């Protein structure tokens, strides 16, 4: 496969996943924040600050008047074109990447991407507020999920699909790690761990899996380690590994490329360490280190498959 095509697929996967994650984080938080709306004990602002952190935004929402923090987060995380992490930016980048590799995508997949793009382009903060932010955000989630489904159902499951998967699950692990980093469970353990589970679509699977009345700390462990929860760190890493091994044709459990080696170490840690061990230095600290590893891993993928410099004659 062309290096350029691989690169575009990777970033298409990452940006669609990012749009979906941000949309769900906002949707869940917006709904939860309604319970805190009339409080002035700082919990409302704290919640929105963590939302901003999940998206990688450093800006502090100004606590000027109740409700404004929510609007500001929406303006920044959804509609700010100057911010590369916002939903409109992510969808714009995804669509631009898709356009550049239009010949590799099925018409069905392209149409879903294009319709998502056209619908988001036609929205503004005002129209989203009029419609109700939760409804608008839900639609973004549904469209991005439909996109993943159409990709699975119509793309040939060769390298095109694998690079898309690699981008998708790398970004998913990244966003999940970000959420673990931003969550402040010590202040209100139950509410915040519940919000974390919902942001990862995992509240019902979690309850279902637990054979006892769970503690908030169990929720954190679930998000990091549940082998079958599709948004857990462990699951995301495993899918990423499947994609990378499929691309390189190296046997699983071995490594032949730098991204496989780094990912193997991350997986081994999650496979063989207990939650207590992982979280010993503090959940946020564990998550921050994981985020850094994922950033490095993304760089490894780029160097291995779409290096900036022309491939030398040595590769002939």
């Amino acid at each position: 496969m062309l290096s350029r095509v691989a690169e575009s697929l990777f970033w298409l996967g990452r940006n669609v996943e990012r749009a979906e994650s941000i949309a769900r984080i906002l949707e869940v938080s917006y709904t939860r924040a309604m319970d805190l709306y009339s409080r002035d004990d700082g919990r409302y602002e704290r919640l929105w600050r963590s939302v901003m952190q999940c998206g990688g935004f450093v800006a502090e929402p100004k606590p000027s008047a109740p409700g404004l923090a929510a609007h500001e987060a929406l303006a920044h995380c959804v509609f700010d074109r100057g911010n590369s992490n916002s939903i409109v930016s992510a969808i714009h980048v995804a669509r631009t990447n898709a356009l550049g590799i239009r010949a590799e995508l099925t018409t069905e997949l392209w149409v879903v991407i294009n319709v998502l793009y056209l619908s988001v382009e036609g929205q503004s903060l005002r129209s989203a507020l009029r419609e109700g932010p939760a409804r608008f955000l839900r639609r973004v989630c549904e469209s991005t999920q439909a996109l993943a489904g159409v990709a699975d159902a119509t793309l040939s499951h060769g390298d095109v699909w694998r690079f898309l998967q690699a981008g998708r699950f790398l970004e998913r692990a990244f966003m999940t790690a970000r959420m673990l980093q931003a969550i402040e469970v010590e202040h209100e353990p139950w509410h915040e761990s519940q919000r974390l589970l919902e942001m990862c679509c995992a509240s019902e699977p979690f309850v279902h899996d637990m054979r006892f009345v769970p503690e908030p700390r169990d929720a954190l462990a679930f998000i990091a380690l549940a082998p079958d929860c599709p948004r857990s760190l462990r699951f995301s890493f495993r899918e990423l590994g499947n994609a990378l091994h499929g691309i390189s044709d190296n046997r699983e459990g071995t490594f032949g490329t730098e991204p496989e080696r780094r990912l193997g170490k991350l997986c081994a840690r999650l496979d063989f360490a207990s939650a207590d061990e992982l979280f010993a230095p503090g959940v946020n600290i564990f998550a921050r280190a994981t985020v850094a590893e994922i950033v490095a891993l993304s760089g490894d993928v780029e160097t291995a498959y779409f290096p900036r410099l022309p491939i030398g004659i040595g590769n002939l």
Partner: protein
Amino acid sequence: MPRLRRNDRPRAAPATGGRTHASGLGVDPAYARATQYDELFLPDGSPREHYAQLMATLAALPRDEILARVQSINTMLLQRGVTFTVYAEASGTERVFPFDIIPRILTTAEWDRIDRGIVQRVRALNAFLHDVYHDERILRERRIPREIVYSSKSFCAEMIGVDVAGDVYVHVSGIDLIRDENGTFLVLEDNCRSPSGISYVLENRTVLKRGFPDVFRNYEVCPVDDYPSRLLRVLRHCAPAGVSQPNVVVLTPGIHNSAYFEHTLLARRMGVELVEGRDLIVVDNVAYVRTTHGLERVDVIYRRIDDDYLDPLYFHSESTLGVTGLMNAYRAGKVTLANAIGTGVADDKALYPYVPEMIRFYLGETPLLENVLTFDCTNDVQRRHVLDNLDKFVVKNVNASGGYGMLMGAFASAAERTLFAALVAERPRDFIAQPTIQLSSAPTLIDGRLSPRRVDLRPFALLSDSVEVPRAALTRVALREDSLVVNSSQGGGSKDTWVLQA
């Protein structure tokens, strides 16, 4: 709907009045004034025989239903990304290529004549290209003035003496035809570089079938979707000698090119890689693509990039669209380019008047498709006549295409005519003039009624060891009233074009 007998076909719009209607749709009273040949209506307002069933089908559909389906087709085109880029507007303007739902129908007999004429013309054009880059027989025998060939901007001296695979220069061409007042097809211009439009042919058929399945009733329309496989066969056929399983790629300038949609569609349907210049690298005269598993050899490049941008070593040195060293690989015969480099000299508008001569010279045949009468501005007598009668002429810059750089004398302002007169006097080699021709019209759905709009026809020809003309032609339509310019950049749209099966 009952099958119609010959003599109780519904009467379509009479040419006068326009109050009765051919369907739920009214007919524009402009038809009463029409003097041009109309594709559908006879002068008395009844439809031509091969359109009668179509009109009957449309008549059975309520107007609102038709308009709603048109709307859904437009949405479909936008969502499928069937758009083009307009260069004059703000960067990145994507527009749906307007599609008119009333198909243009060609009978088997009409198509046969077109087919034979185009086969003949393309054979002659290809022979001419081989000749001007090798023996120059036609120049030595003074059938074409040497200076017109050498002064052509598209003449490529680097191609002199270069042998191309199979002696094929114009693998793909598009020959633009129009119809005069009598309905006779004439060649308006040849496109021997990289003619576009086939993607609209394919998409138009797809959306018309989805939106108006009923109109296909009782017609046997030749399918168009075999074009990509025919193209792939032609491209594989012209691989460098000794390559049995050639690696074919489509080379695009990228997403900002106005025909990018077409490049993606052809690559997708042929199942080959769509590459940009930066994906290619030439090492020791061999072209490779950069893949995730290292470099992979390329044998045939269907390039949709102009000559000037192909290789910065030979052409525009600042261009980043092309591939360094590609020209050397090509001249060494290690990679095939389709079309060949330097084919533009054959469709230079100043050489167009000589194409009938090429047919006589190389094939010893009489041209089956006539040219439009054309005045050579380098000839003093002809130039004077043109300048004295500018309001009756269409003046075209030989170096421009897409409807840019031309003067429609009859519609131009005095100032525009003065400007062109000065340009022609200063650089006569750069201009040709043709009397304003009445293109044929076809009924087009405008504001909910059928209005006469001018159309042309672009059949595509594929050349390997023989010429084939797939029954997939593009009808372009000038959507502005009375406009004679059908180019998409000038407000043109297109129609689905049916060739009926024998």
